[in-house]
């Protein structure tokens, strides 16, 4: 065992102090920076969210969180909810695909936006392109069937990425169904 003479610099307390002090300073600095950047970050987050929603529901004046439904927003125009923006997800080729779906109160899809995914670049990730996305506009849950032939009625799968196509479609369809059910409940 290492005995040796304990000079002051190497006492247990000294060593511990050394690390503690570093952490203290680090804490101060982080706290300081946090105080400065947090408002900006918060603004960024809100802005990002709003941008995303506005992109989906272009003519809304504002967005309002819906009580009791986590992550649901209503796009308001002229005081009326013209669309709901709701989270959606599906099991893709490589993990979960997270989306935001914009659905009109009558259950018709307006558009969707992919937030997070791990699909193959060049294959599955083509789901974010307008060519595929635009197929959804105006469709209701019952029309959202994935097929591999060109179609107007259904959803035509991405070439070589049927799994992804299904995942997106299923997620969006579930969102559409949920909104339809919700707005049906509202009307009552």
């Amino acid at each position: 065992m290492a005995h040796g003479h304990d000079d002051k610099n190497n006492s247990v307390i000294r060593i511990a102090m050394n690390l503690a002090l570093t952490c203290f300073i680090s804490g101060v600095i982080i706290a300081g920076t946090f105080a400065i950047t947090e408002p900006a970050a918060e603004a960024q987050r809100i802005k990002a969210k709003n941008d995303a929603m506005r992109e989906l529901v272009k003519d809304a004046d504002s967005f309002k969180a819906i009580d009791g439904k986590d992550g649901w927003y209503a796009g308001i125009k002229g005081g009326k909810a013209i669309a709901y923006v709701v989270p959606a997800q599906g099991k893709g080729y490589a993990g979960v695909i997270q989306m935001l779906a914009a659905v009109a109160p009558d259950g018709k899809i307006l558009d969707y936006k992919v937030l997070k995914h791990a699909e193959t670049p060049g294959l599955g990730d083509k789901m974010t392109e307008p060519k595929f996305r635009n197929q959804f506009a105006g469709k209701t849950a019952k029309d959202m069937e994935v097929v591999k032939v060109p179609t107007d009625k259904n959803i035509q799968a991405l070439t070589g990425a049927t799994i992804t196509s299904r995942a997106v479609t299923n997620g969006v369809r579930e969102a559409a169904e949920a909104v339809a059910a919700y707005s049906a409940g509202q009307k009552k």
Partner: protein
Amino acid sequence: MAEYFTLFMGAVIVNNFVLTRFLGLCIFFGVSKSLSASVGMGMAVSSILTVSSALAWVVYNFVLIPYNLVFLKIVVFVILIAGFVQFLEIVIKRFSPTLYDMWGIYLVLIATNCVVLGVPLINAAEGFNFMKSVVNAFGSGVGFAVAIILMASLREKLQYADVPKSLQGLGIAFILAGMLALSFLGFSGMIPL
């Protein structure tokens, strides 16, 4: 149960830590020169990963989330892990030299490495519960061990091959890893997590 099994197998083969997620590559390439070292490293990583993920989960869920300090997770995790690993190393070295020779010497290397920090961060990002965090961590560790042991056996074999001089060492190691990753593509799409 099935859920945990899927999570585990997913972490071991489908989303293999090294071959599809690119974590822990420094030690993957650094320590895979010999089979025995890679076995030790595999064991060290699996065990440390499991324990430190559990520790990190506790701190994250009982301290950081309640106080709304999620952004502190990097600093906190890293101190936690580095401190823990260094402590463990000292203890093992003192009390069991054989154990230390088997995998203790690798502890220093992993204290500050993508692997051990990456998994707690992923667990936090995925919002896993305690059990899931531990299973995911253990699975990732095993996945790492599988990859590094395979890699080491391949590299040992190539020691006796006529690898062009310019590729010897790191170059051929990367190419081997590429082909391993290519083979692991066979598992992709198998268990969507």
